[in-house]
């Protein structure tokens, strides 16, 4: 079963690349986004799917499930995520972060009832989120062109290449029972979207063109994450008012 699904994912990615190839000649205003016209179409598609299906589901989730249950599920998902962060911290030779993630997972799994309680954070063990795209970035792989993936949203060529590895490393994939796996993936999607309800509205309110706003924010954020919060800035802050 698992190989069938993997083939499906790789097939999807291959399709995306083919589609992107076809669009490579379209002129774009931004050098980081040579496939803009294609990306915009996928962005609009994703936005439509979100508006009719994912956002309403997340709203139902927030309204129906009590807050303490949602917090428990959020912590549970976060604990599973910390395992992959630990692996990627190790791949980036960030020894202390890897050890801290290991301690987070141990404490939360054992004392936090399998991760439902986030005791590690109370103990001031901070979460260090890392994925394989960040690991590639750490080792000097440039992000490459911006890519919007169907359903998964903003990405770059580098992060798209890393995506199957993150998918493989996802702890949820290690559950044997397919029904459990699917439920967990669905729950995680709801949890993720529920926590972004306000953010997505804010982005739409704050921007003149939501597509490029999201793109620029994604590219900045990934650079920020690769440099653990302090990326080198090449933005020219010199005073424009000065004569």
């Amino acid at each position, binding site marked *: 079963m698992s190989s069938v699904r993997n083939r499906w994912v790789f097939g999807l990615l291959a399709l995306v690349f083919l589609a992107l190839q076809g669009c490579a000649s379209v002129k774009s205003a931004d050098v980081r986004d040579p496939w803009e016209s294609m990306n915009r179409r996928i962005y609009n598609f994703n936005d439509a799917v979100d508006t009719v299906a994912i956002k309403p589901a997340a709203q139902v989730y927030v309204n129906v499930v009590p807050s303490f249950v949602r917090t428990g599920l959020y912590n549970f998902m976060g604990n599973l995520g910390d395992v992959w962060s630990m692996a990627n911290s190790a791949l980036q030779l960030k020894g202390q972060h890897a050890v801290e993630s290991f301690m987070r997972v141990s404490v939360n799994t054992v004392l936090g009832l399998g991760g439902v309680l986030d005791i590690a954070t109370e103990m001031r063990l901070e979460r260090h989120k890392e994925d394989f795209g960040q690991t590639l970035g750490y080792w000097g792989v440039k992000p490459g062109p911006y890519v919007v993936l169907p359903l998964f949203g903003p990405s770059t060529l580098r992060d798209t290449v890393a995506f199957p590895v993150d998918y493989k490393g996802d702890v949820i994939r290690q559950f044997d029972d397919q029904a459990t796996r699917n439920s967990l993936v669905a729950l995680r999607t709801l949890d993720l979207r529920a926590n972004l309800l306000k953010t997505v509205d*804010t982005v739409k309110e704050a921007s*003149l*063109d939501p597509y490029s706003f999201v793109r620029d924010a994604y590219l*900045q954020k990934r650079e920020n994450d690769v440099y653990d919060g*302090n990326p080198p800035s090449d933005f020219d*802050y010199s005073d424009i008012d000065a004569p």
Partner: protein
Amino acid sequence: MKNSHFRIPLNRRQMLAATLMASTAAVWAADEAPEVFVKRITNETLDIIKADKALRGGDVNKLMQLVDDKVMPYVNFRRMTSLATGPAWRKATPEQQKRLQDEFKILLVRTYAGALSQVSDQVVVVKPLRAGQEDKNLVVNTEVRGKGDPIQLDYRLEKTPGEGSGWVIFDLNVLGVWLIENYRTQFTKEINAGGIDALIASLVARNKTNARNS
């Protein structure tokens, strides 16, 4: 040598104390450390929200008033707007510059107020200042901690010796995204399509839609 300061005659001790107090006050007024400045203004704002029912309930108009009163005096908004606009700023007339600032301010204050409406039990942790930064362009990293993952919130400051608190904010970073850099693309796109007036018109339209929806 322990307790040696007790041997200083009373009048000299008083003088010393007075001098010390005077000098710390002077240092505080003239040279508040940047991370202290950021900590003070964020805590002042958060404390007001936590103490006020209407603000905690997310009353956007009242929150906008609060941001206007408590945050904007510490922001060099002209610099923010000019940097977001880019080179086209120099070609804009003073009237256009003023309208652009006014509309951009409404947009940002509303967004910021929307974020503040989510405040419940958060605390702001100001991180130690990174060494080797210049006074003209200095970043203070903070983290908002509450439910869920901490939120990265950084401030870019410039020193204004002898004016106000000695520092003003001219850029803000939310979750790793610097606002000015992100708005540069937004603004440039409008300016390329129809000049400064087109940009002002889109900001006006966006603000009107936002006001209707809230």
